[in-house]
């Protein structure tokens, strides 16, 4: 027992050795599988060990505010700009983008497939009262979804039982939607990498309103002196480098590219 | 040094009922003192009061040494022996370990007392698995192993067969010969007559009669003691 404890303490001591950057990222970044190929490449190129905290955008911003992470990588422009304006982050750097898509049962009872805009597709779902799963966790995806509902003129509070806020990450919400044969808004990458699709299919995409930009924000080391600003800068430089472009562009699932490097 | 006790107006009450006292007396134990009396007379409580483990409702018990020394120089054997869930060897060693006796000395004393109590072959047996007689002998050995000045025994032979009773009595005689004073209760008048040097006769929580054994058994001073010795029911 004593020896085990000693070994345990040794491991604790050694984990702090390599230079690490703690990065709060959105669930879509992890669930898409991109992090699994990107992190080893970062380690190889820069020697940095990036520790990922996979949370919703809302919580990621809170972690940055408290100084519990060194940087954040999220996708909710308005909230990000507020974060930087309040001085919690130094600046906002756009890294990559993809888009949101509307997922739903392949039978498509609300006829989402034939709509012209994202708002219109939500409207028909509301009209048929087909079940709809909302992230409900103040994440980037959730914020985008609420903005879309706002565009339809409907209040999410008044939507009724068919509108289900699950308060969970992208994967868990997709699991729920799969179980209920419900509609759901997802980012494209998480959807493509999701393993439990069942009857679900991608029904609507392509509206510019569904654009999804990911940005990197270093936490302000003037406020949080323990933040390793130099390591964070190294990471940021890598994320906008050609090496990152190759990794992001090269990451495909079933021949489909999940993210596009930079900003449009 | 001779251990003497002084009891001043000692009382023990439980739930408003007086169990013992008031008792005021000097106790100068020598040899074997037998506490006699009918059931409910307060014999066990009396022993516990002398040992200092009973909460008093009034009065005071003092030995002619400090409380700490008194407790260290005493041992108590309960009516149903309490066995530590350990081996016989560990049970015997336990009182010595408590006072930080050096290990080699513990080993010698344990071996010696195991021999005296006839438990040498059972040293590595778990104590709770012993027979009733063996348990009582172990409890007695464990009480005597620290060479106490005074040992209290509460009905040590209550449920034992003749042979175990004889072995226990032999151990008690031996201990007395070695200078230990014994204060014990018993129901068995035969045993009382065999062992007693002094007798204390308790009735209704009070010392009704006391004195040297030969005189007490030959000519009890009170009619109740007389009746008790004759085997009548005494209330």
């Amino acid at each position, binding site marked *: *027992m004593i020896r*085990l*404890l000693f*070994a*345990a303490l040794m*491991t*604790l001591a050694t*984990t702090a050795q390599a230079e690490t950057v*703690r990065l709060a990222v959105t*669930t879509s970044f*992890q*669930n898409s599988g991109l992090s699994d190929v990107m*992190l080893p490449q970062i380690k190889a190129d820069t020697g940095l*060990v990036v*520790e*990922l*905290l*996979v949370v919703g955008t809302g919580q990621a911003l809170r972690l940055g*505010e*408290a*100084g*519990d992470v060194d940087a954040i990588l999220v996708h909710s422009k308005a909230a990000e700009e507020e974060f930087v304006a309040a001085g919690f982050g130094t600046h906002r750097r756009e890294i990559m983008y993809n888009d949101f898509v509307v997922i739903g049962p392949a039978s498509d009872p609300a006829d989402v497939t034939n709509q012209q805009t994202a708002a219109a597709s939500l409207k028909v779902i509301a009209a048929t009262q087909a079940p709809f799963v909302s992230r409900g966790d103040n994440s980037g995806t959730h914020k985008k979804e609420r903005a879309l509902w706002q565009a339809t003129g409907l209040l999410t509070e008044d939507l009724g039982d068919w509108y289900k806020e699950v308060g*969970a*990450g*992208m*994967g*868990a919400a*997709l*699991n729920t939607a*799969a179980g209920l044969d419900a509609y759901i808004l997802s980012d494209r990458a998480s959807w493509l*990498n*999701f*393993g*439990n*699709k069942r009857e679900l299919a991608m029904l609507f995409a392509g509206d510019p309103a569904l654009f999804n930009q990911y940005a990197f924000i270093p936490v302000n080391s003037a406020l*949080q002196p*323990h933040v390793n600003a130099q390591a964070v800068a190294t990471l940021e430089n890598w994320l906008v480098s050609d090496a990152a472009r190759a990794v992001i562009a090269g990451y495909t699932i079933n021949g489909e590219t999940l993210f596009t490097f930079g900003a449009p | 040094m001779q251990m003497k006790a002084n009891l001043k107006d000692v009382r023990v009450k439980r739930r408003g009922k007086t169990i013992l006292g008031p008792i005021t007396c000097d106790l100068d134990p020598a040899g074997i003192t037998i506490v006699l009396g009918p059931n409910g007379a307060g014999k066990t409580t009396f022993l516990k009061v002398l*040992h200092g*483990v009973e909460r008093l409702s009034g009065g005071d018990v003092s030995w002619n040494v400090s409380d*700490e020394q008194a*407790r*260290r120089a005493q*041992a*108590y054997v*309960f009516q149903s022996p*309490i066995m*530590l*869930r*350990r*081996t016989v060897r560990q049970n015997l060693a*336990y*009182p010595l370990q*408590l006072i930080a006796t050096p290990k080699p000395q513990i080993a010698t004393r344990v071996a010696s007392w195991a021999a005296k109590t006839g438990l040498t072959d059972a040293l*590595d*047996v*778990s104590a709770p*698995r012993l027979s009733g007689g063996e348990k009582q002998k172990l409890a007695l050995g464990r009480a005597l192993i620290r060479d106490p000045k005074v040992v209290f025994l509460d009905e040590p032979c209550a449920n034992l067969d003749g042979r175990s009773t004889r072995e226990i009595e032999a151990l008690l005689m031996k201990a007395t010969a070695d200078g230990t004073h014994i204060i014990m209760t018993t129901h068995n008048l035969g045993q009382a007559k065999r062992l007693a040097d002094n007798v204390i006769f308790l009735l209704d929580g009070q010392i009704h009669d006391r004195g040297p054994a030969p005189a007490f058994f030959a000519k009890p001073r009170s009619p109740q003691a007389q009746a008790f010795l004759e085997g009548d029911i005494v209330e």
Partner: protein
Amino acid sequence: MTDIWAGLASAFWLVVSLDADLVDITLRSLQVSLTALLIASLIALPFGTWLAIRRFRFRRATIAALNALMGLPPVVVGLIVYLLLSRSGPFGVLGLLFTPTAMIIAQVIIITPLIASITHQAMRELWAEYHDLLISLNTSNWQRIRTLIFDGRRALLTASLAGFGRAIGEVGAIMIVGGNIDQATRVLTTAIALETGKGDFALALGLGFVLIALALLVNFAIHVLSRTEREGRW
């Protein structure tokens, strides 16, 4: 049903191939939970025993509080530890958030009341048996506690195992304070939550079976050890 078979097959392959990630995660699970168990036992065993032998004014209240703490929701513990260890919290300077140490702290808080409560119940019985003898021998409190712990060790083993079971299977608190960081704070339960989130039920279930096997193995090993000890001694 197919999912369960796929999970079994996945568990089998993970174990047979000694998957590097699996080994890493499993060792971390053991490291965190066993360390937490050791610390919690060092606190809870003497404390539970002490509660059994001491009569003091707030004893009943303390025992009631202990039993209530036993049902402490791990998520709440996690949240509180998180807020305490956060850089903006009172212990932020220690930089412990999102480390195995933080997970150990949370687990110690969760399992200590459980172990102490079971200990108290077991020790109360033993104390009733030993009470007169230990009082008569004029033992100090500490000697009494040591004697009861030594002689009641098998009951205490059960108490500790209950604590270990709760620790190794716990997910809510360590997810919050550990952050489920790959290679740093990911353990079996948080990995299961993650794989479930990805919709990879086979892998999640596979990890689940490994977790169950691990809990059984530790229980079994300890029982075998305690039995050989018993036979050797008695």
